[in-house]
């Protein structure tokens, strides 16, 4: 098992490298940039724009920008004689904004040395801090929708399998297609209009909690009404997926020899389905949980946007719009690592649950 885990982690390194290269290239290829976003005012002079671009390093050649993100820039421009003024530079100019003065020494260390950089926005704070302050909200919504999806989806799938071909099975099959096909932004807005203040007025129209002046939101169980709609929107897809998985898995198991044996022993249908069938049918579902749980990290961008939910998904949307490269890259890398770990966890779970599987 250890050998397997080490090998998978080593295999993940080129994958992560490829992801980072691809995303960085796509991001830089999109038109627009952070300097225009930060200085779009008639009172800002071209010189100030140039100074800001030099400070952010966004005018450097693309490969240099990627290298800075990867390896930092404290070796690209530095002060060799200790007088506090940069005097040596590699790959980037000493005087990047052309004002006749050298730029300050580079301070970034790059992600390979654990420095994900500072956001161009968000008060130029470290992106890890910016992401971590959003993680709580994303986890809360993600876990809630996962729990709802599983607790409804699995029983529905079981009942559909037990009543294969019956009204309930057909009904859930149709509903699964409908739920999967519903765009979350549309469903979200519809629910807001129906249940929100301008409709039935039963539920709040967004945010994570009501107005709080200081001290943050109260515990989640005191503000369940805020969780209800966004959880529902995300969970409907989960209900559809888990119910179909469960149904297919249970039907697959029902054709196995040990089920026939159980029936031949004269066990009741309930015992056959739930004691022998269900436990084995849950194995694929359990292994599905690994990537699902870690996928929660990356947030549900559209749902968070519609419901003003202050999570990571919304952060990504605004960061892409603002061209906040460090934040986008950090979220993508976290999500990529989480996904790889999720699949690794999934394989390990599979081996742990199913004794027939051996990891090598």
């Amino acid at each position, binding site marked *: 098992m250890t050998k397997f885990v080490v090998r998978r982690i080593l295999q993940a390194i080129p994958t992560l490298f490829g992801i980072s290269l691809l995303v960085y290239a796509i991001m830089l290829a999109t038109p627009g940039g952070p300097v225009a976003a930060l200085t779009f005012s008639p009172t800002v002079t071209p010189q100030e724009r140039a100074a800001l671009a030099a400070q952010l390093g966004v005018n450097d050649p693309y490969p240099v920008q990627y290298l800075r993100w990867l390896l930092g820039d404290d070796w690209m421009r530095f002060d060799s004689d200790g007088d506090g003024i940069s005097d040596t530079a590699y790959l980037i100019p000493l005087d990047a904004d052309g004002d006749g003065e050298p730029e300050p020494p580079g301070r970034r260390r790059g992600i390979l040395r654990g420095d994900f950089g500072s956001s161009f926005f968000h008060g130029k704070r470290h992106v890890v801090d910016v992401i971590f302050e959003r993680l709580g909200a994303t986890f809360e919504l993600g876990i809630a929708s996962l729990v709802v999806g599983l607790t409804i989806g699995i029983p529905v799938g079981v009942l559909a399998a037990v009543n294969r071909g019956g009204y309930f099975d057909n009904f859930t099959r149709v509903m699964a297609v409908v739920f999967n096909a519903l765009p979350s932004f549309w469903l979200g807005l519809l629910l807001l209009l129906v249940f929100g203040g301008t409709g039935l007025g039963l539920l709040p129209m967004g945010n994570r909690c009501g107005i709080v*002046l200081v001290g943050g939101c109260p515990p989640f169980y005191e503000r369940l009404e805020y969780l209800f709609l966004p959880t529902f929107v995300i969970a409907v897809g989960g209900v559809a997926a888990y119910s179909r998985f469960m149904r297919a898995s249970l039907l697959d198991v029902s054709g196995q020899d040990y089920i026939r044996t159980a029936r031949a022993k004269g066990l009741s249908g309930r015992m056959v389905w739930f004691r022998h069938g269900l436990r084995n049918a849950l194995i694929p579902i359990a292994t599905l949980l690994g990537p699902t749980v870690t996928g929660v990290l990356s947030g549900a961008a559209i749902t968070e946007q519609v419901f003003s939910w202050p999570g990571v998904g919304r952060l990504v949307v605004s960061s892409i719009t603002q061209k906040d490269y460090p934040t986008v890259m950090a979220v993508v890398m976290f999500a990529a690592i989480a996904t790889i770990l999720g699949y690794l966890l999934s394989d390990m779970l599979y081996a742990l649950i199913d004794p027939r599987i051996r990891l090598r």
Partner: protein
Amino acid sequence: MKFALRVTLVLVVLCMSSLSAMAQEGGIVVRGNAGADPTAFDPLLINETVTSDIHALIFPDLLSVDPATASIVNGPGPNALATGWELSEDGLTYTFSLREDMYWTDGEQIDADDVMFVWDFIQSGAVPTHLSFVADEIANVEKIDNFTIAVSFAEADCDAINSIGSLEPYPSHIAPEDLTTMPDQEFNQNLYVSSGPYTFGEVRPAESISLLANPDYVDAEMGFVNNDAFVLLNVPDLTVMVERFLAGELSIISGPQEARRAEIYAAEEEGRVQIYTYPGNSWDYLAFNLADPANPQNATDEDGNAIDQGMHPVFGSTEVGRDVRRALNLALDVDDIIERATFGEGTRMASHLVPASWAFDPTIEPIPSDPALAAQMLTDAGWVNSDPDDPSSVRVCQGCATAEDGTEMRFVLNTNEENARRTAIITIAQESWDKIGVKADIQTLEWGSYREALLSQTLDAYVIGWRNGYPDRPDATQLFTPASDVVGGCSNCMSYDNPEFTAINEQARILPGCSIDERKALYAEAQRIIQADTPYIFMFVRNGFYAAGSEVNGFDPFPSQMLWNVDTWSIAQ
């Protein structure tokens, strides 16, 4: 004795009841914020709409402003540090007396050092700031004593007082020695020292920013701030903002989408909402590029010498192609555009000055709609229909002044895709021009891309808008002079350059004595020139619109100042 006791008792009760009547009524004022979180908070480093709103509520001004007229007043005023000024005989130096009863929330007195710091910071150039323009306009700021400062100018400037207003006091005692570290200071994230009706409360990223009533606010109209707090609540977009306002989750809203205003009017009729409308200060226009978009150049080189910018193959340059641009203007029915794009919530403009401006000349009529005349003018200008029997066939150059013969009259018309109003404008313009053989390919760009394309000066024609500040400043140096025509950093991005206009605009700005009537006459002339040159098709100013829930007591806005008396507001529970 009994009578005396009764009288005493009645008096006590009356006193108690009057005391309770003077107690804070409370409530939380909630306003929506449809934008992203503020980038930062330090007032010297950031000037986004949302941060400007916050700064206005928690920091003092230097100068007093009359909320009714939005003009700067030579005298004391609430939350203003200066009590007035004296102007030197040569008109170049303003000497301000400062109040001695204003304190920061940490107990430090606000004095001349807090104004001087701002000037020193701007001059240092240590960190890019939106206030850098002040250094171009003000020659020097001098501290006379702790409560007197003198601001001087190199030349008399009728708008000088507006520049001085930008020197708003800053808590200099908490500033770092090394000014380059200001963006990294805690103050840039948490405005823990302030002085205004509110103090900084808490930032909940992507959720809300709370400001708490300042119990020590010295200029409170009622002796205290009448509500508990002011909260900026994050909402995903303007549509949801209107929904949440109508649902009672937001106390106030300003400038809602025109398409949703009918619902708010309906809520007013039901008694759920209070509305205030006024002539607005945000205006939309359609601009023509008057230089070669394939080879964008600055207007002048480093020595101030003019650079040949070429001309646009359809729109020409400032001097060439006026008839074509006017014809394109005549081909549009702007009143119809107002009706269809803003649901009638716009007021027609004739020039670059909004109708509410003191310098606006009402005798200048907007260019009317006359498609037949437009077609004839294009033909006369050498742009003829490719099929003489089909007036909508594409026009081609046959002796036109801006392109080679055979060039088709085609161009791309851009706007930002998130803006439904502007998207409607370019769609209607395309339809109208198509009927007379002018082919505009419309293209919408995401805001970031659009912004970049605008600054690069590579667009043919585009629709965008300006928002005038208050107090009104009719000076057009930023909009229409070569000084603002710099590739990558322009506000005169279409390269308009008429020396006559530039001279008149400058003359109006530095007119000796600053006579309002004489300046109005000069600005009227400038308006006529700009209309004749038609670098823009002036569209409309959006009607201003403020609304508050019926539970908001004290809502009494002026055009530029919805929140001027917010310290007296209370929210009925």
